């Protein structure tokens, strides 16, 4: 393994890293908003809305991310709408991860005791006021650890955008390998970069879990 060669190409890796970070950040925002919307619809028991949310969750939890991504990218082109690669990756990953995040948030919402709804109802709060002012704030603390866990999975999954040609970290690494060889050194470096991003997050999760354990 010759890391000197890798070092010479490091700026290129950093470019990929930046794209991976941007894709991760945008997808975290997108999937969280989608997940929150789907979870809200699902617990709302609004007839059609909650059905749509349920189908959404089932469909995307039951299909590979790779297929979702290819479907978004080539499907949109087929429909005559040419998406840029980065946007397609954000949409594909957000839609896919949003299904998991919806379930995490829904579990959090449902873990708030019914007594909280009852107390609010008697005080005169509407269901939506109760949801926003009483239930969601309590949900935050409960869902944060599994949510961050899901974000870690999301960050690692961004590497799949490789297949639609996005110049993210892995694809840049591949380009370096194609040019100068040294696959092992490049892969180790890439793995180390992912680790540097994800490890603090998983430490954070562990800290949160330890703190929320009943004394």
């Amino acid at each position, binding site marked *: 393994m010759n890391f000197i060669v890798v070092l010479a190409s490091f700026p290129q890796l950093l470019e990929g890293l930046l794209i991976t970070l941007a894709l991760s950040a945008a997808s975290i925002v997108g999937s969280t908003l989608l997940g929150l919307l789907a979870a809200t619809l699902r617990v709302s028991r609004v007839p059609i809305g909650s059905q749509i949310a349920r189908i959404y969750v089932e469909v995307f939890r039951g299909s590979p991310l790779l297929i979702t991504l290819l479907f978004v990218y080539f499907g949109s082109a087929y429909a005559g709408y040419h998406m840029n690669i980065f946007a397609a990756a954000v949409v594909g990953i957000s839609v896919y991860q949003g299904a998991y995040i919806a379930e995490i948030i829904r579990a959090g919402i449902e873990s708030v005791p019914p007594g*909280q709804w*009852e107390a609010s109802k*008697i*005080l*005169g*709060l509407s269901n939506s006021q109760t949801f926003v002012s009483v239930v969601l704030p*309590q949900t935050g603390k409960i869902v944060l650890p599994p949510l961050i866990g899901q974000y870690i999975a999301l960050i690692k999954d961004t590497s799949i955008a490789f297949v639609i040609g996005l110049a993210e970290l892995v694809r840049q690494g591949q380009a370096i390998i194609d040019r100068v060889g040294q696959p092992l050194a490049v892969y180790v470096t890439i793995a180390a970069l992912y680790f540097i991003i994800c490890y603090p997050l998983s430490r954070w999760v562990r800290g949160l879990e330890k703190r929320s354990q009943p004394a």
Partner: protein
Amino acid sequence: MSNLEPIIKLAGVTKSFGAVQVLKGIDLHVSEGEVLVVIGASGSGKSTVLRIMSGLETADSGQVWVNSVPLHDPRRAREIRGHVGMVFQQFNLFPHLTALGNVTLALLKVRKLSAEVAKKKALAVLDRVGLAEKAGNYPSQLSGGQQQRVAIARALAVEPTIMFFDEATSALDPELVGEVTSVMRSLADEGMTMVVVTHEMSFARKTADRVVFMDQGIIAEQGPPEQLFVRPQNDRTKQFLQRVLEV
């Protein structure tokens, strides 16, 4: 509404959960300013009656009038919201809000008071339950008795016409029961209409205008406390009182 017209009227109220009929025809009137204590064995339907009167459950049949709202009419039932108060066994305080936040929430969101006015009002109510200096504490930083007093303050802040208490002291350590019952007693003295489910027989004796004994989904006996506790007519009442007064 005249003072003679009951503020709560239940007529022929039934309620089933699945195949189990929990209420088998409840008729009950409560007058304005009256303190009604409901006693009875576990599972006799006390909470269910209270939850129907407060609008948390709907009766399967019969009529329920509370504060001139026909709760048996699904189109109008929600009018009761914000006009009655309920204090729960498990407090049901909002854990993410301070005592002050708990009390102001409905004032801000339902009454649409300004933050300043709501705060002033909330502090006054907290003071009434003796907790003005704990306004900034979160529920987890309060004792059970203090938490329940905050819950009472939260309910009182919206100026309900009736207060319901469902075993408000059952979750408390014995030494903390008194601080809650004394707040309840002072409310009764001020003329609040109250329906109180409790196992505190001494509270019932001292504070109730009338005591209702529920047994297996019906009202088996009712009367003023001196009559019901001293000369119960019904055998089931006698058995129940023997059991609870022994311990």
